């Protein structure tokens, strides 16, 4: 098992577990997008023309643009953000982290190619992969490292 440095340089985006992501068309209403994000436990919808990714609409867009003034009938094509940065499945985790950090993105779309569906990579996906590689460092922790039981049973 190598270092975190080697892990980030070696593992490719395609090795990450694919997170569930909703794809919608430009004409999908804002209200329907709210429903999808809530019921599918998703953080963003990808807006596609056929299979081509044309935009993204995230929880942050809701906060900044529609939470106080949104009309649930508005088509999402009028509200979506253009794709600013994207990744391919051949990119390394280090590339994803650099893109997220430098661009201030928390989620970066994967446009998909060769018949693949578009996807999404989130910061939490990367943390999960690191945690799975180093369970003794990141997962097998007691609730508090400074916790000491005063009785043998801990009760």
């Amino acid at each position, binding site marked *: 098992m190598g*270092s*975190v*440095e080697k892990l*980030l*340089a070696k593992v490719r985006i395609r090795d990450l577990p694919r997170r569930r992501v909703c794809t919608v068309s430009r004409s999908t209403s804002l209200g329907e997008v*709210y*429903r999808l*994000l*809530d019921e599918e436990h998703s*953080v963003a919808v990808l807006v596609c023309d056929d299979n081509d990714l044309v935009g993204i609409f995230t*929880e*942050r867009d*809701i*906060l*900044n643009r529609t*939470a*106080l003034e*949104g009309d649930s009938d508005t088509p999402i094509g009028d509200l979506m953000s253009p794709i600013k940065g994207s990744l391919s499945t051949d990119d390394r985790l*280090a590339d994803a*982290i*650099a893109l*997220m*950090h430098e661009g*201030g993105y*928390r989620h970066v779309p994967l446009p998909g190619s060769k018949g693949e569906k578009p996807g999404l990579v*989130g*910061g*939490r996906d*990367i*943390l*999960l992969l*690191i*945690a799975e590689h*180093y369970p*003794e*460092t*990141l*997962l*097998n*922790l*007691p609730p508090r*490292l400074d916790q*000491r*039981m005063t009785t*043998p049973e801990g009760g």
Partner: protein
Amino acid sequence: MLCPNCDTDNIPGVDVCEACGTELAGMDLPEARSGFRGKLLTARMGDLPVSEPVLVSPDDTVREAIERMREAQVGCVLVATDGKLVGLFNERHVLTRVLRKGIDVASTRVSEVMSPKPFELSPEDPPAFAIHSMVAYGFRHLPLVSQGKIVGYISVRNILAFLHDGVIADTASVS
């Protein structure tokens, strides 16, 4: 787990050596390692570029909380009474607890939609704790509280910045 006093091989996780009674509690906790993996256990979150907390009162309206998040360009506000943390309200709550429920943002108080008593960490805790909480429990924002005082919060973005500065920027500067 070998007793450092008498070399007896004890069952992993025991609190005292069965042969000599030496205190063994905590000795099988993960040890700091070299490189970035070591930093995950030895760095203090207080030394990371943590996010400045944006505080609201439980009696503020949901509209005011959303406006504060927009002004500060953050995804969460910490709800505090007399400087003490009582809740957390984030952008996911805006969707699931406000918009999806059709709640009136002008008349509903933050205290009605916040997550009360959020899980908190200390600025003395290592980043491994934050990653553990985010991965195991799905927390996105972890308030940092020191002796009852809110000092900031840590988000997935902060951890990515820590990874970037500690691993990727370092590697790039060498190569």
